[in-house]
């Protein structure tokens, strides 16, 4: 039992921290707006092998643990990396779980990162996956189309409807293009649930990194900004608002790591439950931390010149592609208490 990173894990984290510090200053984020995609950054990331990390070694990937992926995503979240990374990793991990995914003609290209994939976290309707995160730039979309889990290669639109997070969202038609069926029926549903949990886990990590960085920005700004002859960080009202964010941020960091660790240990059901929790809690703290940090900037906080508004918008935009969080709470309740009408089971959690 240890809540701190091992030396190896620190090495992984530090490597990605350095990569993003070098390659993704905030100017990259700004330049990538409004599409929210930085192909040059992606090209650099390919050199690190990150695009293939989620795929086992035996299939040519990096064979990363879920925890490694979480460390990667936390660093990506801290710098708001404008890449469909959570989506690509969740999609490729899913493909590698099925024979037909592994056999897909572009599988190796996805592992290499030459081709980009996106996991659609919501089931498609009438053959169209709506507002898929990463969907504007992904060559391949993995989605649940009625009772089939499919991977479809078609032309990425390379444009997104203007949106809150400047994220590369797009509707994707699953019935045109090169379609590979990964699974049917109950198996498709189970694999889809697993993919969604992976996406939630990775998004939770990104949101946790985003929130931690937003708090740092808030602390830095309030220490520097003076009003009434003192730094505004000296006002108790400001201090208490910032202090309130520490527990939730530390908490989601642990909870996300625990969800990942549990997946690595092979307890899939428990890991999915924890991923859902980590996702919900991370979305909330990212929302609250960015609100507070922006608010304590005063009028500057809402100007485009300051970075905090970039964090504010992504804190909301990243998780909301899954839809209303209250619906996710209800799905979590199904995991915890059994479906509506079910007989009693022990309360997990």
């Amino acid at each position, binding site marked *: 039992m240890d809540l701190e990173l091992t030396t190896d894990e620190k090495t992984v984290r530090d490597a990605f921290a350095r990569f993003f510090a070098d390659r993704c200053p905030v100017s990259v984020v700004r330049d990538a707006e409004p599409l929210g995609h930085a192909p040059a950054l992606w090209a650099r990331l390919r050199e690190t092998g990150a695009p293939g990390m989620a795929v086992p070694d035996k299939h040519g990937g990096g064979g990363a643990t879920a925890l490694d992926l979480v460390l990667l995503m936390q660093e990506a979240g801290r710098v708001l990396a404008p890449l469909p990374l959570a989506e690509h990793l969740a999609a490729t991990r899913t493909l590698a779980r099925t024979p037909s995914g592994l056999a897909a003609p572009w599988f190796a290209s996805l592992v290499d990162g030459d081709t980009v994939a996106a996991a659609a976290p919501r089931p498609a309707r009438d053959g169209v996956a709506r507002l898929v995160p990463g969907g504007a730039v992904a060559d391949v979309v993995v989605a649940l189309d009625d009772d089939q889990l499919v991977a479809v290669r078609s032309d990425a639109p390379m444009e997104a409807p203007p949106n809150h997070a400047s994220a590369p969202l797009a509707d994707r038609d699953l019935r045109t293009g090169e379609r590979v069926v990964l699974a049917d029926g109950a198996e498709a549903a189970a694999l889809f649930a697993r993919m969604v949990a992976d996406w939630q886990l990775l998004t939770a990590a990104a949101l946790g990194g985003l929130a931690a960085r937003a708090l740092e920005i808030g602390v830095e700004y309030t220490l520097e900004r003076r009003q009434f002859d003192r730094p505004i960080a000296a006002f108790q009202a400001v201090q208490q608002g910032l202090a309130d964010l520490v527990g939730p941020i530390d908490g989601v960091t642990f909870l996300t790591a625990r969800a990942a660790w549990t997946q690595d240990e092979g307890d899939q059901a428990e890991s999915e439950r924890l991923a859902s929790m980590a996702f919900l809690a991370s979305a909330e703290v990212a929302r609250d931390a960015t609100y507070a940090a922006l608010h304590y900037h005063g009028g500057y*906080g809402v*100007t*485009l010149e300051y970075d905090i508004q970039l964090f504010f918008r992504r804190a*909301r935009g990243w998780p909301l*592609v899954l839809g209303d969080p209250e619906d996710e709470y209800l799905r979590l309740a199904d995991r915890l208490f059994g479906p509506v009408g079910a007989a009693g089971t022990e309360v997990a959690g």
Partner: protein
Amino acid sequence: MDFAPKPSVEEFRASIRRFIADHLTAEMVERAHRTGTFHDWDFHRTLAATGVIAEGMAGPGRATGRDPLELYVLFDELGLAGAPFYGLANAMLVAGIIEQIGSDFHIREVLPKFHSGEAIAALGYSEPGSGSDVAAAATRAERVPGHPGDEAVWLVNGQKMFTTLVHEAGYVILLTRTDPDLPKHRGLTMFLVPMDLPGIDFQAIETMGGDRTNITYFTDVHLPDRWRLGEVNGGWDVMKVALAYERGVFGNMNQGVTLLRRFAEWARTAERSDGTRLIDDPGVRRRLARIAVDNEITGLLALRPALLASQGRLPTTEGSVAKLFASEAYNRAAEACQEMAGTAGLLSPVRGDGGDWGFVDLAARDAPVTAIYGGTSEIQRNNIAEHRLGLPRAR
């Protein structure tokens, strides 16, 4: 207590609604959102032509003029209709200040331009170094040595932040420091500065919510003394007058009403993934009902300062109480609407297409600033704690 609307006020409300129906075009609203400039010269001048600015606000210092309650209703209706009214608010505010403490020169030369809608003003209070702490203004105005008997001239140097509409304004009302050796609140002087003087420059500042504001630079601006408002080193007294006008009357605190109305309307047609209507989801219904309760309270609290003014009394902390509640409630509402809307709530208004979708995204971007501008929530709470609850000053 009496909640019956005043007939005169309701009559005025009806006339404003007619005016809006007749003169506000979808294109004006769209242009305001597209440019971030919430002022439209056509609309403004047509409205000014009704005499509403010239009539001014009745009050203790002014027997004639419009009932403050009518002015509250004016801004409420303009807000509900999405009309660009920032220029109107600034013009009425500065006209009010001039009437109360302006010189004959100001009243003769400048006031008619505001009344007719020919000119609007920008507010030069905040600076890069002074936001909440307005009295820390550092923009310097120094008296230029001159021949005895000549009109004094001030040399102005400094920067003003958040000078919204300065790019459309004929004048900027400017809080300056004239004596740095006096205590903070005592060394300030207010001026009305014509924007066409040499040495004034500004730069646009874009915001997350789409509003355009500006930073304005004053570099060796030679400002004749006739542009001074109030006494030398009496600038804080002018600020107090300005703030009294601003709080509670010249604003629109009921943004939650429009948001709820539009959301509920949309939710009647929007489908959830299972094909049911959004409006029929219990979680959505509960959250919308909660917003409706907040809106009801906001409406009553926001009315109070205007009502007090309408009764010839001086609102004190009532504006702070209303503003704090309204902005926090609007933030809660925007957050709830964004969550309820799910993916749809992420889509931004597409500028220029004339469509009106994107109101949820817009509210989510816009709400945070309401808890900041015109005094942050922390400043309002300080004010309430000290002046309403009688707690000791804690800074």
